[in-house]
């Protein structure tokens, strides 16, 4: 049958723009042949791997088999969406390579530096500790806070670490020798809930960062001058999360059910995003991973000058953002999430419902395709990153899921929960890939290193666990 042998196909990119004219493809092509075809069409110098989707379902076998299974008519033009995937592949971690004690109280936050060379953790025993990744032992113990260290954040150039505590004091630390850069900075009256640095493509070396607190303000600090430059007030209740976007805006979410958009030169309120019915717990930006890792990617870790770093950060940022505006997703206590395009519109783009308990943490995948949400209803849900449509649910945890983290190639998702286990979920099969038990008590914080080699997790049992493949 002549018509059964070839199909009219139109290859398109994730935003919908076609790569060329529709062409006839024989039915026995599979993903590998399509890969070669698309790379030739795009005239790519490097061969990128692609994933192909027809009607939002991934094409895994031959085209003909797919058509038979789904009874797709061959008379219409078949639209195949080609998603570029990361060139490098991260292997899932399977074993706990080290359990490092050191903290005398629960570990509250764990974070890898953007270049993946340093690991820092903040704890309820008021210290920030740096850990050596090569020997898997403690490196420095930084004393200076007088109360629990609630959040830590690395600057995108990897040169500084800032930590906020339960009294509202903020300290800066140098990762190489573990010394504080001066005494703690005061300003907030209640505890710090979130910290976020200015992206490195806007300024290198990193100077400014924003802090959110329970007292309802967001303050912008300068790390060189060591003082508060601006104070953005407006929220009536605690600010739960603050994010500095790549477009130079600051987004802050609060318990008063709103999200406010601020501009950073004068500290004026630009927009207010209303829609949630209860506390907004968490925010995530589509370019968040790129902003966090700054100029570093899996190839280069050394830069000769700050201008070079700024340029590298800018190219990475533009590649991740493509042409569409930045998207923001917010998770709330009202069991739903909203997808916004805050620089354009104050109305949400999509409302993502489905969770049965409050949403604690949302995170865009590094390539911006997926949104993952962790909720207290023991499940992790996967949503489409551009439209907000629901894709899959990952069930397996027996306790509320606290934090999630993506691997750098967006193929694996890690979740840590109150039931003391970490679980790795595969994006291709949409199933559980690895189960990582071992913690004796709740897991409060997880992080995947940007080079994809290690995972660090800390929790109530006071030990830091390093996992490797």
């Amino acid at each position, binding site marked *: 049958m002549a018509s059964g042998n070839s199909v009219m196909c139109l290859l398109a990119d994730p935003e919908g723009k076609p790569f060329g004219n529709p062409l006839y493809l024989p039915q026995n092509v599979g993903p590998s042949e399509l890969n070669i075809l698309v790379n030739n069409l795009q005239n790519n110098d490097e061969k990128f791997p692609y994933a192909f989707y027809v009607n939002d379902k991934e094409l895994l076998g031959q085209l003909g088999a797919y058509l038979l299974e789904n009874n797709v008519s061959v008379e219409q033009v078949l639209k195949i969406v080609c998603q570029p995937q990361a060139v490098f592949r991260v292997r899932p971690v399977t074993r706990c390579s080290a359990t490092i004690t050191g903290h005398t109280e629960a570990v509250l936050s764990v974070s890898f530096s953007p270049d993946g060379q340093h690991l820092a953790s903040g704890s309820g025993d008021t210290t920030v500790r740096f850990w050596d990744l090569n020997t898997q032992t403690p490196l420095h113990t930084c004393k200076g806070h*007088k109360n629990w260290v609630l959040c830590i954040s690395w600057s995108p150039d990897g040169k500084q670490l800032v930590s906020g505590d339960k009294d509202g004091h903020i300290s800066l630390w140098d990762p190489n020798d573990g010394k504080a850069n001066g005494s703690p900075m005061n300003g907030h009256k209640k505890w710090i*809930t979130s910290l976020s640095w200015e992206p490195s493509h806007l300024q290198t070396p990193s100077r400014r960062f924003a802090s959110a607190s329970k007292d309802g303000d967001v303050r912008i600090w300068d790390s060189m001058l060591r003082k508060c430059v601006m104070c953005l007030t407006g929220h009536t209740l605690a600010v*739960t999360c603050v994010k500095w976007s790549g477009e130079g805006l600051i987004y802050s979410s609060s318990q008063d059910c709103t999200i406010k958009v601020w501009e950073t030169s004068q500290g004026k309120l630009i927009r207010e995003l209303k829609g949630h019915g209860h506390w907004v717990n968490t925010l995530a930006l589509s370019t968040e991973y790129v902003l966090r890792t700054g100029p570093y990617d899996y190839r280069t870790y050394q830069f000769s000058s700050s201008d070079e770093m700024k340029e590298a950060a800018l190219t990475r940022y533009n590649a991740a953002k493509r042409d569409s505006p930045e998207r923001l997703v917010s998770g709330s206590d009202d069991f739903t999430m909203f997808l916004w395009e805050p620089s354009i519109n104050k109305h949400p783009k999509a409302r993502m419902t489905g969770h049965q308990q409050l949403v604690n943490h949302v995170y865009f995948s590094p390539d911006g395709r997926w949104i993952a949400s962790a909720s207290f209803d*023991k499940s992790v849900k996967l949503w489409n990153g551009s439209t907000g449509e629901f894709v899959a649910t990952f069930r397996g945890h027996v306790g509320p899921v606290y934090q999630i983290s993506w691997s750098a190639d967006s193929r694996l998702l890690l979740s840590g929960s*109150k039931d003391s*286990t970490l679980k790795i979920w595969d994006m291709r099969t949409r199933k559980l890939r690895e*189960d990582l038990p071992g913690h004796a008590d709740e897991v409060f914080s997880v992080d995947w290193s940007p080079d994809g080699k290690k995972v660090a997790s800390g929790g109530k049992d006071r030990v830091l666990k390093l996992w490797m493949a």
Partner: protein
Amino acid sequence: MFAKKRYAEKAVMKKTLAMHSEKSKRRKVDDNVQEGAIPAYLLDRDETTRAKVLSNTIKQKRKEKAGKWEVPLPKVRPIAEDEMFRVIRSGKRKTKQWKRMVTKATFVGPGFTRKPPKYERFIRPSGLRFTKAHVTHPELKCTFNLDIIGVKKNPNGPMYTSLGVMTKGTVIEVNVSELGLVTPAGKVVWGKYAQVTNNPENDGCINAVLLV
């Protein structure tokens, strides 16, 4: 009258002066760092602390070998047979007295079918059969309504254990899957032992305390 007004003014002035001097005075900050550190996203939430993971399995294995378990009620009142059973007379002239009816709470299990009535010696009335128990966690001090899986040991004797009689001090096994406990190896715990703490035949319900 003016004296009173002036007195009131002086008092207010003294108070404000004291407040101002307090601000400039340097006071030693006492570090009261509380226990039980929780991350920022849990700070405003009033969550009950959940049960800790099962304690060391080696300790448990050692205990099992010794056959001795620490239970909250080590001693129970011994129950006589004529208190536990009531004699049922049967037969045409009601002279046969070999049947007994249990007068205490029992658990029979989901797949239970009676023996043929002519031959059953021990009758467990359905009104005294229970499937759920109110189990209290000793550390969290909260009570859950959990399904009973089986009767492990009745201290009054092995015959009562095999009949499934639950009196005060009986160790039963309950279904704890809704508590979300996980072993150190990562497996989900779904059954745990609990000890009955009340007299179910007097109260109409079974109250037990979880053995952690």
